[in-house]
């Protein structure tokens, strides 16, 4: 191994009785990556996250976090998480909740101030948690997660139940934070979040990874991209284009040609170097369409 991975899942299976929530996931995440774990509800995202956090044990396979067992990585503060909901006590104040976290991690009082500031809740430190809005509670969870200054931060559906501005503020804070080089994994079923904030998107469905790459790659993988170009006499090129590897369909409309392909780079290279094509453009479908394409057989299967 040339580099120590932030997270390494190797053939991980998680069964709950007869239900297989995670069905053979292998995944390596490098330090510094911002990874979206994207998939519909019940895809196995939360089960996967739970195993990375040592909250549950895989039925098969192994999970390592910075080369350590997850429980150990959690105890050392290498990894922390912002969970979807719950996990707060109503009769603690915001400040006390963070202080308790500091006490548990053995971190000094200044650290409490620092993370309250960072999460933007220093002004409501004396407010009871039960009196905080959903967005404020989520920022409190974020502050708690930041407290041990983790190498890896995991966010499980972090913006569920937030309004648009709350969501925006939350992601700005995360974005700001990721700049310091922290590894971030977030589970989401909001496509636009994965598209906007992740360097890498891992598509999960029915407990398996069905696609893994940059948002752009995943979009292309799912539905391909379309190359459109102006090509006088396009009909003559139709057969040659159709014969190329990875080409799904070719449409000729007068002097323009539309090629749907998995590898549009090859198609573009061919068009520009071997033909008289001009005004070439490559159009990706958005992640939403990719998402539907990847998950659509759920209906037919």
């Amino acid at each position, binding site marked *: 191994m040339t580099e120590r991975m932030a997270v390494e899942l190797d053939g991980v299976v998680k069964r709950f009785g007869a239900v297989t929530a995670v069905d053979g996931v292998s995944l390596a995440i490098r330090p510094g990556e911002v990874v979206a774990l994207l998939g519909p509800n019940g895809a196995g995202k939360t089960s996967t996250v739970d195993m990375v*956090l*040592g*909250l*549950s044990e895989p039925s098969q396979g192994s999970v390592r976090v910075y080369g350590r067992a997850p429980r150990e990585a*959690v*105890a*050392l*503060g*290498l990894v*922390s*998480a912002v*969970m979807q*909901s*719950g*996990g*707060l*006590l*109503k*009769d*603690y104040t915001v400040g*006390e909740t963070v*202080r*308790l*976290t500091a*006490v*548990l*991690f*053995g971190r000094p009082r200044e650290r409490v101030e620092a993370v309250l500031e960072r999460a933007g809740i220093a002004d409501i430190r004396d407010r009871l948690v039960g009196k905080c809005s959903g967005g404020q509670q989520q920022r409190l969870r974020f502050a*708690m997660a930041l407290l*041990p*200054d983790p*190498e890896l931060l995991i966010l499980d559906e972090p913006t569920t139940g937030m309004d648009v501005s709350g969501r925006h503020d939350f992601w700005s804070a995360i974005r700001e934070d990721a700049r*310091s*080089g*922290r590894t971030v994994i977030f589970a989401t079923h909001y496509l636009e979040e994965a598209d906007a904030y992740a360097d890498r998107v891992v598509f999960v469905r029915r407990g398996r990874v069905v696609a893994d790459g940059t948002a752009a790659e995943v979009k292309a993988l799912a539905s391909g991209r379309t190359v459109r170009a102006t090509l006088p006499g396009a009909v003559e090129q139709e057969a040659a284009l159709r014969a190329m590897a990875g080409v799904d369909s070719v449409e000729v409309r007068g002097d323009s040609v539309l090629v749907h392909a998995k590898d549009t780079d090859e198609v573009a290279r061919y068009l520009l170097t071997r033909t008289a094509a001009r005004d070439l453009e490559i159009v990706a479908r958005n992640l939403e369409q990719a998402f539907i394409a990847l998950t659509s057989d759920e209906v037919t299967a």
Partner: protein
Amino acid sequence: MTTVVERSLPRWGGFSLGMIGLELRRMVRNRRTVVFTVVMPPVFYLLFGSSASYRSERLDGGGNVAGYVLVSMAVYGAMLATTSGGAMVSVERAAGWSRQLRLTPLLPGAYIAVKLVLAMIVGAVSVLVALVVGAFTGAELPAAAWVECGLLAWVCALVFAAFGLFMGYLLPSENVLQILGPVLAVLSFAGGLFVPVDQLGSTFARIAAFTPVYGVGQIARYPLTHEGNLWLAALSVVVWTAVFSVGAMWRFRRDTARV
């Protein structure tokens, strides 16, 4: 990351005075708990134990009947306090807090230890308040018995800290105390805290001896009454503590395996 963070595990699995302090502050903030554990027992004493006749009626070993009732109420208070201390885990599980704590270095054993210490602190306050109220309102005990009865009531209440933990892990309720309140009242009645068991017939008295409160009451009142079999009472306390601890461990293991 540019800054290198010193990473080490906390001592004692995360058990710390800092955590106890914060938890105590939270407990005191909950009015229902305070009323239930600190106010109710002395009020019961004032209502049922401090009448003129109880104050004038002397006991053989010194002190008056009011003092006898007071010790019983101190036991009752310690029991309520320690039970509710232990039962806090139920609320915390319901809120997902236990799960949150598993994302920290806190070891499950240290968490239980913190809960037990808290239960015993609140138990001590409860006993102390009851005794002070009693002392100012006509309860009389031999000088040494004040200390001995109070200490014994407090120490033996450890049974109920274990009971509270067991119930806390067993009952999924947010309002576990609303269930446990009546249960404790029935147990106190059966164990002779409210009415001496021999006033309720011999069959009842025989059954009562096997209930969890009986032994605690007998031991706590012993410095005052020098009555009954201390060894049997001690056995009762030990056996019930073991039963509840085993129950709590059993549920606790299932809980940590599941979450």
